[in-house]
């Protein structure tokens, strides 16, 4: 039976040139980084690309990994930067996720078999509204919400990853939830 190694131990091994250890980091964090990217970018394809870029960037810059930082914080920081870069690029090219969101919503969501078509449609509509509301948040607020809601990171982990004070993380999350609440209310009224 193999011994369970911590992220930091795996990180140290990867840092010393153990390629297998880096593979282990990818296996451990791939899903969470993908969730973060998906929450930030809102499109599966973009999220997949951003996740790949994140790990490639991490692999190339292994030397930049500071031993005192957590592997998770390091990876999240890279992932957030990747997502922000992709968003800027998409903005420049006028290829925002919002343009394709109707299509993406329909494609990515398949209703459970026991759910009635009417209920599935209602659920789809509701999630589309949430998605639009999150996409409309400024990047600084969106990243905090996604890190909290999609990845379930603690405030401290978010603060470490984004290099922010703890109180700033909390106030950003509060502001983001307030804006989401208002947007969801307005969008629901528009739909009705």
């Amino acid at each position, binding site marked *: 039976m193999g011994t369970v190694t911590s992220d930091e131990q795996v990180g140290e091994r990867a840092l010393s040139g153990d390629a297998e250890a880096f593979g282990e980091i990818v296996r451990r964090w791939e899903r969470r980084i993908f969730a973060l990217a998906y929450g930030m970018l809102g499109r599966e394809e973009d999220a997949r690309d951003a996740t790949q870029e994140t790990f490639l960037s991490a692999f190339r810059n292994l030397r930049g990994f500071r031993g005192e930082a957590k592997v998770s914080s390091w990876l999240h920081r890279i992932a957030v930067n990747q997502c922000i870069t992709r968003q800027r690029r998409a903005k420049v090219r006028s290829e925002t996720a919002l343009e394709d969101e109707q299509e993406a919503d329909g494609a990515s969501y398949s209703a459970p078999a026991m759910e009635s078509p009417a209920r599935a449609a209602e659920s789809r509509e509701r999630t589309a509204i949430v998605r639009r509301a999150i996409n409309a948040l400024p990047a600084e607020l969106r990243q905090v919400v996604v890190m909290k809601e999609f990845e379930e990171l603690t405030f401290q982990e978010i603060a470490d990853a984004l290099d922010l004070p703890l109180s700033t993380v909390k106030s950003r999350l509060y502001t983001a939830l*307030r804006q989401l609440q208002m947007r969801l209310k307005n969008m629901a009224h528009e739909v009705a």
Partner: protein
Amino acid sequence: MKEMWDKIMRERKEICARAEDLIAYLYSEASETEARDFEKHIERCAPCRTELAAFGDVREAVGEWREQALGSIASPAFENKDVTAFASAQEIYKPKRSALAAIREFFTLSPLWMRAATAAIALIFCALAFIAIAHFKEQPKVVVINEPNKANPVQENRNATVASKDEQPNTPAIKEPTVPQQKVFVANNDKAQTTRQVKNGTISHQQLAGTRKPALRSNLNASEELVENDYLPFTAPSHEEKLPSLADLADEPNQ
């Protein structure tokens, strides 16, 4: 945008200053003591109570989207591929970018303020470079040789010229160029400056003609002139002229 966030927080603090406690409680990150304290607080604080319920609904909606979105996506990015092999392949097949492409990408991806700052710095740099080049071009390379202790033959010539001009009755007083008192050598490549000097009368046409000659010739003439006027302190001794040349020595039989 930042002002808007600050405004939201300010307004919230005016109602109740415990927004951060509310967030910690909402996400179950408050300690037991803090949680108990906040529960007591919301019993008597209606805004916090209302907001807690509203934020709970928001979280539920976001959670529903997350479940639907991530639940339907089966495969992660690498699909259990060997990441190091993948990375190597990426490195190998990664096309090399040109400098122009790199600059273009920098301008595409950078925020507006950074682009503006870079453009401004580039403009300032170009302007400074232009000014510097113009400044160095305009500086005339003037060699002034003046021997105060010795009678200056040019001065004598000038006096003679002035005297002869004085003899002409209607000739106005000569606008004396300041330069002819001295030997002036202007660099050949500085035509603009030389033209200006001619227009201003600070350099004579004879001197200008001298400057238009090829450099070697100009230098030879200048040297000869200096020697003639006994300006050069060190000249070849006259007995050197009497020394036999190498050709003469070669013709002579060995003794």
